C-alpha cells in the first residue's frame, strides 16, 4: 500500500520534472531563435542600407538586390523585404509565399530599429527590422520582416525531447529501486520493532505506516531507552530474586540441618510409597545405609515385616489423612534395639504429600519398662516370701500351737522377723520413690556422730548375732560434729550394716568405724564377707542391681539398699567409696565434710 503510493508519487514527480525540463528547453530555443532573427535582420538591414538607392531600386522589369535576397534566403522565417517612401508607398518589395507586406510605419529617428507587427486575419505575426536608406532626394526606409516563430514545438527536435523524457522516466524507477534497497534494512527493523513491541506487556512503541526514518529513529531511541530501563528493572528483579533465592536456600539448608540433627530418624514417602527423604539417623536405627533407603524400593531395603506392613498401609493415601499409627518393634538390622515407628500422613493445603515416618530409639524406654516389670515381679516375690512364711506359721500355730508352747514362741519370732523384713523392703521402696520424685530433702542439723553410730550398732547387733557374726564399733567419743539429716542418714547406715551382715559368712566380722581427717569424717563399714568383683563394684550402687547370689544366706536383697545409701550420701554432699576383693570382704566408706569451726556453738541434736 505504502509502496504503491510512493510509486505514484514518483511517477507524478518524474512527469513534472520532464515537463519542467521541456518547457525550459523550449523557452531557451525560442530566445535563441529570436536573437538569431534579430542579428540576421539587423545585419541584413545595415548591409543593404549601405548600398546606393539605385542598386536597391532598379528600374522596373529588372531584378534588383531585393529579389536576390529573396532568392538567396537561408532563414525559413524570412517574410518579406521592402523599400518604402516617406508617404508609405512601397518603391520595391519582395515577399516569400504567403506573406503580405504590411504598411510601413514612419521612422521616428533616422536610425535602425525594429518593431513587431501583430498577426492579422490571415497573416502570422511578424518582426520587422528597418533602417534609413542613404538617398538624397527622398527619405526612404528599408524594411525586412521575419515571421515570429509559430509553434512551441519544433518537430525536428521531437526525438531529442522524447529521449530525454525516456531517460528521466527510466531514472525515476531506478532511483526508487535503489532507495528501496537502501530502505530495506530499515523497513525490516521497523517490522522487528513492531513484533517486539507486540510481545511487550505495555506497548510503548506503535509503528504507524508511512513512517519516515527520523520518526523511526526517534521511536527506536525511545524504545531503546525504555528497553534499557526495563533491563535495569529486570536486573534489579533478578538481584532481588537471587537474594530471596539465597534466603530460601539458607532456610532450606537450615531446615535440612535441623532435620538431620534430630535424634529421631525421619523418612518421607511420596504418595506412591517410595522414600523421597531420609535422615542419617536411619542408619544406626535400622541398620540400613541411607543411600540404600533412598535408591531401592521399600521391599528392597526394609527387612522388618512390622515396618513394611505399616508403610504398605499408608501407601496410596488409602487411610484417612489424619490417621496416625505407631508400632514398636526390634529392628532385624540392629540386634538389641527397640524402635518406635510412627507413620503420619503428610497433608496440608488440601494436598497429600505422602507419609512421614518417625523412627525413635525406644531401647532405653523398653529396658526401663522391662526393668520396671522385673522390679515389680521381684518386689512381688520378695513380699510373697515373708507372707508365705507368715501364712505357714499362722496355720501351724492354729493346728499345732495349742499344745506346744515352744512352737508358739518360735512362730511369733519368725512372724516378727518376717514382718520386719517386709517393713524394711516397703520403707526402702517408699524412700526410693520419694528420692526419685525429688520430695526427699535432707533437713540437716548438727549431729554428734558417735551417738548415731552407737544407735545403729545396737540395732544391728541382734541380726549379727543371729548369723554368728561379730559386730564391732570403733568410734572415738570426741568425734567432730557433722551436719546431716539424722533419719535419712540412719537409713543409709542401716543398709550398709545390713549388707555387711547379709553378705558375710558365719564366724565373720563387721566393723563400724569412724575416723576424723583434716577436713572430713570418714565412716567405714568393713566386713570379712564374700566381697565382689571389680565389675560388680562399679555397678553395685545402680538401682535394682544385685550381685549374683552365691549362697542361701544372701537371699532377700532387693537391689535398692546400696542405691538408696549412695543417693542419701550424695544428698549430703558426701561421697560413698567402695573397696572390695572377691572372697575377702568389702569396705564401704562414707566421706562427710566436717562442720565449720564457726558453727561449733550451734545447736547439737
Amino acid at each position, binding site marked *: 500500500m505504502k509502496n504503491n503510493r510512493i510509486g505514484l508519487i514518483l511517477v507524478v514527480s518524474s512527469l513534472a520534472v520532464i515537463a519542467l525540463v521541456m518547457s525550459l528547453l523550449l523557452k531557451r530555443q525560442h530566445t535563441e531563435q529570436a536573437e538569431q532573427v534579430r542579428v540576421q535582420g539587423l545585419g541584413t538591414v545595415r548591409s543593404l542600407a549601405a548600398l546606393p538607392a539605385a542598386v536597391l531600386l532598379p528600374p522596373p522589369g529588372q531584378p534588383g538586390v531585393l529579389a536576390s535576397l529573396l532568392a538567396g534566403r537561408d532563414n525559413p522565417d524570412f517574410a518579406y523585404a521592402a523599400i518604402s517612401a516617406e508617404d508609405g508607398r512601397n518603391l520595391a518589395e519582395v515577399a516569400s509565399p504567403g506573406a503580405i507586406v504590411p504598411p510601413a510605419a514612419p521612422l521616428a529617428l533616422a536610425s535602425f530599429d525594429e518593431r513587431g507587427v501583430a498577426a492579422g486575419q490571415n497573416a502570422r505575426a511578424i518582426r520587422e527590422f528597418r533602417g534609413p536608406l542613404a538617398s538624397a532626394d527622398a527619405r526612404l526606409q528599408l524594411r525586412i520582416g521575419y515571421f515570429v516563430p509559430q509553434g512551441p514545438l519544433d518537430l525536428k527536435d521531437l526525438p531529442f525531447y522524447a529521449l530525454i523524457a525516456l531517460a528521466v522516466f527510466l531514472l525515476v524507477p531506478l532511483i526508487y529501486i535503489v532507495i528501496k534497497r537502501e530502505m530495506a534494512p530499515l523497513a525490516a527493523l521497523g517490522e522487528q520493532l513492531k513484533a517486539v513491541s507486540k510481545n511487550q506487556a505495555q506497548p510503548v512503541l506503535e509503528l504507524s505506516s508511512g513512517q519516515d526514518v527520523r520518526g523511526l529513529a526517534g521511536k527506536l531511541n525511545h524504545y531503546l531507552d525504555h528497553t534499557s530501563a526495563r533491563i535495569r528493572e529486570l536486573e534489579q528483579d533478578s538481584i532481588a530474586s537471587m537474594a530471596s533465592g539465597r534466603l530460601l536456600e539458607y532456610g532450606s539448608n537450615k531446615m535440612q540441618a535441623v532435620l538431620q540433627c534430630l535424634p529421631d530418624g525421619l523418612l518421607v514417602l511420596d504418595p506412591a510409597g517410595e522414600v523421597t527423604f531420609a535422615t542419617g539417623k536411619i542408619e544406626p536405627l535400622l541398620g540400613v545405609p541411607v543411600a540404600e533407603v533412598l535408591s531401592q524400593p521399600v521391599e528392597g531395603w526394609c527387612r522388618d515385616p512390622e515396618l513394611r506392613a505399616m508403610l504398605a498401609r499408608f501407601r496410596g493415601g488409602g487411610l484417612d489423612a489424619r490417621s496416625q499409627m505407631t508400632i514398636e518393634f526390634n529392628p532385624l538390622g540392629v540386634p538389641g534395639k527397640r524402635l518406635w515407628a510412627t507413620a503420619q500422613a503428610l497433608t496440608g493445603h488440601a494436598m497429600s504429600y505422602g507419609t512421614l515416618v518417625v523412627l525413635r530409639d525406644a531401647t532405653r524406654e523398653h529396658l526401663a519398662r522391662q526393668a520396671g516389670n522385673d522390679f515389680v515381679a521381684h518386689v512381688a*516375690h520378695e513380699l*510373697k516370701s515373708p507372707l508365705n*512364711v507368715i501364712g*505357714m506359721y499362722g*496355720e*501351724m500355730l492354729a493346728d*499345732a500351737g495349742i499344745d506346744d508352747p515352744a512352737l508358739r514362741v518360735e512362730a511369733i519370732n519368725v512372724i516378727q522377723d518376717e514382718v520386719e523384713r517386709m517393713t524394711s523392703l516397703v520403707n526402702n521402696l517408699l524412700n526410693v520413690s520419694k528420692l526419685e520424685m525429688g520430695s526427699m530433702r535432707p533437713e540437716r542439723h548438727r549431729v554428734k556422730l558417735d551417738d548415731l553410730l552407737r544407735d545403729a550398732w545396737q540395732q544391728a547387733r541382734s541380726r549379727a548375732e543371729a548369723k554368728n557374726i561379730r559386730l564391732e564399733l570403733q568410734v572415738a567419743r570426741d568425734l567432730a560434729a557433722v551436719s546431716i539429716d539424722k533419719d535419712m542418714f540412719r537409713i543409709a547406715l542401716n543398709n550398709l550394716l545390713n549388707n555387711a551382715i547379709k553378705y558375710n559368712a558365719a564366724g565373720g566380722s563387721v566393723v563400724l568405724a569412724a575416723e576424723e581427717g583434716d577436713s572430713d569424717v570418714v565412716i567405714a563399714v568393713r566386713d570379712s564377707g564374700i566381697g565382689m568383683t571389680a565389675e560388680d563394684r562399679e555397678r553395685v550402687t545402680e538401682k535394682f542391681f544385685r550381685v549374683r547370689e552365691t549362697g542361701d544366706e544372701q*537371699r532377700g536383697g532387693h537391689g535398692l539398699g546400696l542405691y538408696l545409701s549412695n543417693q542419701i550420701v550424695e544428698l549430703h554432699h558426701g561421697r560413698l567409696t567402695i573397696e572390695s576383693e572377691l572372697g575377702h570382704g568389702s569396705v564401704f566408706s562414707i566421706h562427710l565434710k566436717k562442720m565449720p569451726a564457726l558453727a561449733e556453738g550451734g545447736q547439737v541434736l
Partner: protein
Amino acid sequence: MKKAILLVDDEPHVIRVLRLMLEREGYDVATANDGNEALGKMAARRPDVMVSDIQMAGMDGRELCRTVRARYPDEAFPIFVMTSMTASEEREWVRELAQVEFLEKPLSPRQLIARLTTYFTTAAAAQETPHA
C-alpha cells in the same frame, strides 16, 4: 508303710513348717536346701512325692525337675512345684515334663496336705482296681 516326701526349698522357715506339719500327718519327710542336695538324697531313695521351690540358689527348681525326669524316666512320681508366679506363666517349661503340678505361694500347708491326701487315695484306688 509311710509315704516318703522330699521337700526342697532354700528358705529354712518353709522347710521347718512343712516338715512339722507333714510329719504330724504321718509322712516320712526328707529335706534338701537346693537341687543338688535333693539329687543326692534321691540317689539313695526316690520319694513318693517331691515338693520343690523354683527360685533357689544353686540348682533351681526347673533344672531339678528336668534332671529328675531325665535321670529316672520310669519313675513318674509327682512333683509339686511352689511358685509365686501364676501357673500360666510356668506352663511353658513343664510342657514336656510329666506329673509336674503347681502350688501357688503363699502356700498353705493344709492345702498341700489335702493335695497329697487326694493323690495318695486316688493312686491307692487305681492300684487296687486291677487287682479287684
